[in-house]
């Protein structure tokens, strides 16, 4: 590949200017003519029958334009996932968690809407609730959904090779149990939307979403209307991190409020609602059993995971599968068994979180693996290298690993973190001292571009070129701040040879953009990047053909870069600008040029139909992290000294933004590992503010050392997705570091000082 002018360069985000000046308009900043403000009346009960709803007083309050309850809506149960239809827009008979939607108000102001809520009277007949997934699976547990007959939403049972034979052949068998708790996304912008109903039965929704087309599909499903009647316009989100993959439950409520009032209705969560109602990541309970040879080679590995679905279904079943896949693939063992179970409780529903279950199961296995290494007297790095993946098909699951920088990731992490020396140094430290240091490591594999789930893994892009040479890419890329639009502009600029500042991105509106599920699974730079690159090359071909006419030469002799067309054999002697070519097309040839690009994974339809397991990931990405800590054995307090993160990016399109992705993921990963404890007591969320839910502040972040391994994979310019992977190994790396420092392994996240101290006391270490 010849040298690139835009791809691989540190280029600031194309949206940053409007954000630093305060001109950027997010959902919360939008007002419309005649707009009303919505508020939702939510259940205060964890589980109860609704015996009475009286909204008459609320309806009489001046300024209130509509109050709706289930009685006003056509009866309908919907779900994000067709496998488990279980949710109503407003509860008709029963509430299933604190926060469940019962009624909604549209009023002239937020204050009036809020006041109206206080006038709504609801009487409940409380029912016993179920909160712990293991208890919820027992036969006498209260049923969250009676019609389902059980609290088990779904199960998955996969075996590859012969697990019992594998254990029989093993020299040692290790069993362990971990709990990966919930994590709140804490997007700085709380969820919200504006819905506008129009005569003829159509709905337009403005909302920050990770997938405008997904929201459109889900809203149509929730309302029971033809999808063609729904238009969704994405407003660039103030953080998403998986929370906005699925439609906000406020959206259909706002849609109905708009239908009943004929006016646009804005519905925005308070921060408190955000904590107890806008969904969190899934809690995982993880049982592990691993058989190894005396040298440390894994012969058999078995996991049984139980996920807390919460009261309504969301992405749980997809997550059960995905977590199983990454667990099965990370270390190539000949015999693998994986059982996953998704269970209803009367807790807040769970949803996707950046990493999609990988961090939950990864924490368990990577901490478990360090325990095995310790028992066998192996260095944690050694046992990982011994079981490292290679390019090609995995033994048990037959997943195809296209590029596999497993070894490079570990070795680079070791080099940058000073692994060997530190490990030795800390092994020898005086164990009687109050402050003990440790360094821990963890590895991960993640998808490099989403999955073939559902049989669809494709993207499309269009390029139009105006007479002044401005190139507009019509793309489904979703801008969440991660820089998706900037990456697309770079790919187009590079692929077409135009200037970066001449590229515009048109996205966000389902009436304009091609169909696409959205920004999740680290997929968009890969898939939509491919489509954008194909469109760019298509447009470039047309452009060079015109330039050939202008310059009186052959198209094959020409190339373009950074806005100039030149002869391939004389790259330093530009002949004509791409802007002039565009002008020539219109003014001299009387026509227009454009580009079209499609990327479609050919094996996706088959993978989707057969519900394949590990083969449903088209390419795997790897990553390794090391964390160095100092533990105060008097208080259990952990000072995180340094974190090293090496990420397999395939190719880094934009190091500035890629680093930002990893830095940010590390902050979330460290938060999850150490301070972010999401406490639910019998269904009640006790950590419903930033006072009690501790997300990292600047002072909490350690020195971060990053590197990227460019494995040159299947994506455009070789890219693999990196949006999620940065937080996957973090929890185990921290737990393992604390283990080296103190001999204490905390098996339930977060690894907080109180737990460490309790364990130290129990052992009489301090």
């Amino acid at each position, binding site marked *: 590949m010849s040298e690139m002018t835009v791809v691989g360069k540190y280029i600031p985000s194309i949206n940053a200017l409007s954000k630093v000046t305060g001109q950027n308009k997010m959902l919360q900043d939008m007002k419309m003519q005649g707009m009303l403000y919505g508020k939702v009346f939510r259940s205060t009960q964890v589980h109860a029958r609704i015996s009475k709803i009286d909204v008459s007083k609320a309806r009489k309050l001046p300024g209130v334009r509509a109050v709706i309850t289930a009685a006003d809506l056509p009866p309908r149960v919907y779900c994000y996932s067709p496998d488990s239809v279980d949710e109503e827009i407003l509860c008709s008979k029963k509430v299933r968690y604190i926060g469940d939607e019962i009624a909604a108000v549209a009023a002239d102001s937020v204050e009036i809407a809020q006041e109206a809520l206080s006038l709504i009277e609801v009487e409940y007949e409380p029912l016993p609730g179920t909160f712990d997934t293991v208890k919820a699976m027992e036969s006498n547990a209260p049923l969250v959904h009676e019609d389902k007959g059980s609290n088990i939403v779904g199960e998955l049972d996969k075996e590859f090779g012969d697990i019992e034979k594998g254990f029989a052949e093993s020299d040692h068998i290790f069993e362990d149990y971990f709990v990966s708790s919930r994590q709140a996304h804490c997007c700085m912008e709380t969820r919200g939307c504006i819905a506008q109903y129009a005569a003829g039965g159509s709905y337009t929704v403005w909302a920050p979403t990770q997938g405008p087309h997904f929201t459109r599909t889900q809203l149509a499903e929730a309302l029971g209307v033809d999808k063609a009647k729904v238009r969704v316009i994405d407003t660039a989100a103030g953080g998403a991190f998986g929370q906005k993959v699925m439609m906000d439950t406020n959206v259909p409520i706002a849609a109905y409020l708009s239908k009943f009032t004929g006016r646009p209705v804005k519905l925005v969560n308070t921060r408190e609602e955000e904590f107890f109602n806008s969904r969190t990541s899934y809690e995982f309970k993880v049982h592990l059993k691993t058989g190894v040879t005396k040298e440390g080679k894994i012969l058999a590995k078995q996991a049984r995971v139980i996920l807390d679905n919460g009261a309504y279904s969301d992405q749980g079943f997809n997550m059960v599968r995905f977590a199983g896949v990454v667990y099965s693939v990370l270390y190539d063992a000949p015999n693998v068994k994986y059982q996953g179970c998704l269970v209803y409780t009367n807790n807040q529903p769970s949803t996707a979180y950046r990493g999609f279950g990988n961090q939950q199961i990864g924490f368990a296995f990577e901490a478990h693996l360090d325990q095995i290494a310790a028992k066998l007297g192996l260095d944690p790095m050694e046992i990982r290298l011994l079981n490292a993946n290679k390019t090609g098909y995995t033994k048990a699951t037959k997943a195809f690993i296209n590029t596999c920088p497993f070894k490079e990731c570990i070795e680079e992490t070791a080099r940058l973190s000073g692994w060997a020396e530190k490990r030795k140094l800390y092994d020898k430290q005086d164990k009687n001292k109050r402050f003990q240091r440790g360094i821990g490591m963890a590895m991960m594999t993640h998808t490099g571009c989403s999955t073939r789930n559902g049989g669809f893994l494709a993207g499309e892009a269009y390029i139009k070129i105006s007479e002044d040479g401005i190139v507009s890419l019509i793309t489904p890329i979703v801008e969440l701040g991660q820089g998706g639009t900037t990456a697309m502009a770079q790919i187009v600029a590079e692929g077409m040879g135009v200037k970066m500042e001449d590229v515009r991105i048109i996205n966000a509106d389902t009436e304009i953009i091609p169909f696409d599920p959205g920004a999740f699974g680290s997929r968009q730079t890969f898939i939509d990047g491919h489509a954008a690159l194909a469109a760019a090359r298509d447009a470039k071909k047309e452009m060079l053909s015109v330039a050939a006419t202008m310059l009186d030469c052959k198209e094959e002799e020409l190339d373009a870069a950074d806005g100039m067309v030149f002869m391939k054999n004389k790259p330093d002697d530009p002949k004509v600008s791409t802007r002039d070519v565009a002008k020539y097309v219109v003014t001299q040839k009387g026509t227009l040029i454009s580009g079209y690009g499609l990327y479609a994974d050919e094996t996706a339809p088959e993978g989707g139909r057969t519900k394949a397991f590990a083969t449903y990931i088209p390419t795997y990405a790897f990553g390794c992290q090391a964390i160095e800590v100092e533990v105060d054995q008097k*208080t259990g307090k952990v000072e995180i000294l340094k974190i090293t993160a090496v990420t397999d990016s395939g190719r880094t399109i934009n190091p500035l933004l890629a680093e930002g992705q990893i830095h940010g993921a590390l902050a979330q990963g460290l938060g999850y590992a150490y*301070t972010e*404890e999401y406490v639910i007591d019998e269904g009640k969320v006790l950590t419903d503010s930033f*006072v009690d839910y*501790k997300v*990292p*502040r600047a002072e*909490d972040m350690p020195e971060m050392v990053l590197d990227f391994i460019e494995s040159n994979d299947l994506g455009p310019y070789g890219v693999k997705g990196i949006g999620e992977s940065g937080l996957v190994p973090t929890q185990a790396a921290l737990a393992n570091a604390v283990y080296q420092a103190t001999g204490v392994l905390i098996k339930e996240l977060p690894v907080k000082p*109180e737990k460490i101290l*309790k364990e130290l006391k129990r052992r009489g270490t301090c």
Partner: protein
Amino acid sequence: MNRFDYLKPAGIKEACTILADKGSKAKPLAGGTDLLVRWRKGKISPEYLVDLKGLGLEGVSVSKDGGISIGALSTLNSLLDSEYICRNYSFLTEILDDMGSVQIRNRATVGGNICNASSTSDLAPILLALGAKAKAVALDGERELKLETFFLSPGKTVLSENEILTDIQLPPFSKKSGAVYLKMKRNAMDLALAGVAVFLTLQDEDTCAAAKIVLGAVSPTPVIVTQASDELVGARINETNIEKAADLTAKAVTLVEKEVRPIDNVRASSWYRQDVVKSLTAQAIEIAYKRALQSIKK
């Protein structure tokens, strides 16, 4: 969230009159950083907020003996800017600098912090350790009271509804003294899970003439652990019996605990608070001792 009316008196007397007039319907408003949060959560429903800012209750004045009087409405950041405090009460600067955020400190006031009577107050323990006094005013006149008698329970002080805290007075800080406040928190911006203030004065280089240990966040109001403090007096403090002092403190905590409700919530268990406060105390005594030594040497 109820509705309220905002009242802005022109002087202290008018403020007192309003407060006397409105009784429990009114709440004095200082920085508002705590009050507005509680109002939004529906924990308080005042009908009137009486703004005490701009009544001349801001600022630090130095008394003849070298002590200071801090106006109750002084913001935390304004105290950070006080050179006199920085020079003579540097431990106070250190505490203020680690309280909340810059934005909060630009609004939050010393008086507000004290009058909230929050168990997690970072200022109360150190002010108690120093033997601070509070000055309050009402329509029927002024009174001066020891801070020791000020706190009744979380959110409750000895001040009546129509009384206004005007000043916090600190005695001069002796050249032979050392003071420190240490706290345990979960991350950079957090309320104290446990806090301890230690103030001690040396006679000679290693004999403790006076000591006061005050614990925060381990009981509903800050606790002066007299027993443990007294143990330090007369003791020759060195590396070895610092541990002993901490044990005495821990004992005292256990005694205190029987009479009051221990704090056990999502931030930390009472077990953890109790345990951690012991090591904090040991550490704080050590630091206070070293500081006292240093100041003698100067």
